[in-house]
């Protein structure tokens, strides 16, 4: 099945203009909440600088920190596994499930498991996983992908949730009250928590110094699963490592404020040792991250703490929706991470941007997102993934623009055509003309005016 590229999917999304406006305003509101929270911290820009430097330092010593983290984690009683790619990650998780013959599985939000397509893999093995983050559960019930890494159901209106819950959870038809719907989800998922045998969680930060990890939630779902189930599997990308516990002071001050405008998530849970009688596993995943680490222009993308501030500020994301990016991680950060995973499939993403630079300036760890978008464009074209028509157009443009004579001639031709035969330009073949008028052609160019009046 051919996946639509971003431009096609976005055009489809925008057809419902009212809904696009609603989606755009909702996310802009989240951006504003972030601004308000950041304004409350006079040292905000200093925090970003510290966070950026801590991550830069960590990436430059990644192998060392990974090794010491593993050592400490094992000493804490955590079983550590390593997965080279998504497939291996899924196999490891499945093996643990099979070894213990586990049936009742709950999962709190982990973008890594989305990236590895864990749920789909397990379903094929006859194992179902219940996603417990409310937004994730909603999209799971609707058989959709999340559209935002922090607010998975941001593309849905309460009507949509109400309809789904009515169909599948037997709630009152037409009752759209978020309080009522959340209560229904609480009751529905509580049974799963209480009966759970395995809890799968993500990892927000892994502390090299202590061999522990931190999981942040507002709902408490990660903890509800981790402290009920007898087996806890935490999944992390190699880039989640930070050197010391004290660095959490920097990251936990930036994370929630950047993501939702809250001072901190309700729960910042620090796991160091399994509870008595429990097995705690950690799966450390590469899946292209070491390759990205080796790309000098793009390695900074690994600093990401998955706050989605870049999504909320991006004027393109807000008007095209996460599904237009056809990947687990959408938005600006996705556009610089995904070409590393599959350049051909994701060749469209770095072009889904005007390079406005807003993303780089909300990023709490100062990733130069917009600069990387520009650089990925060069790489993708050099790799041969630009459409042929574009390539020919650009070569033509380059030829004209490097010759003053050709440039002047083409310019005059363009203006003359527009003046005397506008229908040649103002038609369905001209994508500009679809919703915009062409600029009025002046009688003479500036160069011609200058020639007449000044030289």
């Amino acid at each position, binding site marked *: 099945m051919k996946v639509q590229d971003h*431009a096609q999917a976005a055009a489809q999304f925008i057809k419902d203009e009212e809904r696009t406006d609603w989606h755009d305003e909702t996310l802009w509101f989240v951006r504003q909440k972030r601004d308000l929270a950041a304004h409350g911290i006079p040292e905000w*820009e200093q925090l970003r600088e510290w966070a950026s430097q801590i991550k830069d330092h960590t990436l430059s010593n990644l192998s060392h920190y990974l090794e010491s983290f593993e050592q400490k984690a094992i000493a804490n009683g955590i079983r550590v596994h390593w997965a080279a790619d998504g497939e291996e990650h899924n196999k490891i998780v499945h093996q643990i499930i099979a070894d213990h013959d586990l049936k009742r599985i709950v999962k709190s939000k982990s973008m890594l498991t989305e990236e590895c397509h864990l749920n789909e893999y397990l379903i094929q093995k006859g194992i179902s996983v219940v996603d417990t983050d409310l937004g994730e559960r909603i999209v799971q019930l609707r058989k959709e992908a999340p559209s935002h890494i922090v607010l998975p159901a941001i593309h849905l209106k309460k009507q949509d949730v109400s309809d789904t819950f009515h169909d599948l959870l037997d709630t009152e038809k037409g009752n759209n009250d978020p309080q009522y719907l959340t209560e229904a989800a609480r009751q529905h998922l509580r049974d799963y928590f209480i009966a759970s045998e395995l809890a799968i969680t993500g990892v927000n930060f892994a502390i090299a110094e202590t061999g522990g990890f931190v999981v942040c939630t507002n709902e408490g779902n990660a903890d509800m699963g981790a402290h009920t189930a007898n087996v806890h599997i935490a999944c992390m990308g190699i880039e989640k490592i930070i050197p010391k516990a004290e660095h959490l002071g920097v990251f936990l001050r930036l994370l929630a404020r950047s993501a939702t405008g809250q001072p901190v998530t309700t729960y910042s849970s620090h796991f160091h040792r399994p509870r008595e009688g429990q097995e705690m596993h950690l799966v450390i995943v590469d899946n292209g991250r070491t390759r990205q680490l080796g790309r000098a222009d793009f390695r900074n993308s690994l600093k990401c703490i998955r706050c989605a501030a870049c999504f909320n500020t991006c004027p393109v994301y807000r008007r095209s929706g996460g599904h237009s990016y056809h990947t687990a991680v959408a938005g600006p950060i996705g556009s610089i991470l995904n070409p590393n995973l599959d350049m051909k499939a994701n060749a469209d993403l770095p072009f889904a941007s005007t390079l406005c630079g807003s993303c780089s*300036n909300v990023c709490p760890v100062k990733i130069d997102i917009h600069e990387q978008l520009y650089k990925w*464009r060069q790489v993708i074209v050099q790799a041969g993934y630009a459409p042929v028509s574009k390539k020919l157009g650009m070569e033509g443009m380059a030829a004209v623009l490097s*010759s003053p004579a050709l440039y002047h001639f083409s310019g005059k031709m363009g203006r003359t055509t527009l003046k005397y035969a506008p229908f040649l330009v103002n038609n369905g073949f001209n994508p500009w003309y679809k919703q*915009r008028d062409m*600029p009025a052609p002046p009688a003479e160019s500036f160069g011609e005016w200058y020639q007449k009046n000044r030289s």
Partner: protein
Amino acid sequence: MKVALFIPCYVDQFYPKAAIATLELLERFGLEVSYPKNQTCCGQPMANSGFEHLTKGCNNLFVENFSGYDYIVCPSGSCVMHIKDHLHTEESETAAQDIRNKVYELTEFLVDVLKIEKLEASFPHKVGLHQSCHGQRGLKLSQMTELMAAPFSKPGHLLSMVKGLELVELDRKDECCGFGGTFCVTEEAVSVKMGKDRVLDHERNGAEYITAGDLSCLMHMEGILKRRGSKVKIIHIAEILNHHLS
């Protein structure tokens, strides 16, 4: 002070009045301004589309045309930013570096180099100032709302010197208009939606004119305004700063 005028390709072809206003404005301050007549384009449309490797010809031509000046002034933030970031040539890298250090967008030249404090200009209208992204975030022509930092605006400072001009306050101060180079046609739907939202913000807040430092943004918004049959007009900031009631 030898000053060269760098006029973006589409300004030369489609908005000569803005280029003329830029020239006249600089001459008002007693500057001797040359216009290297073999200039064409900075190469940005190709570079931003991933075809940076095709811009050698443009770069060489640029260095040829613009060497030997004290300042190069241009009424376009994005073109200036492109030159500052990407002008490199194999044969004459020293000349290229020299140019990168001497190229200025118009408002930053007026504020930072000429340090002008008053203008004999008058434009008694309600004006919305669109913050073109590359100029704002790239060249730091004015503070961006993303940062927790002191506000400032070079174009705003200049507009405050224009008699009768009333700057309207927008709902979203610095959102992108959606032009984005070839983005305007490769992602036509998003581009137009962004432009429409931008234009509506200005209309909603009572602007009669939309001004900016980049005619690419203005050309895109004008296309939308005209299609909507709107009374709102676009005007490059140089034309406002050079505007005199005759």
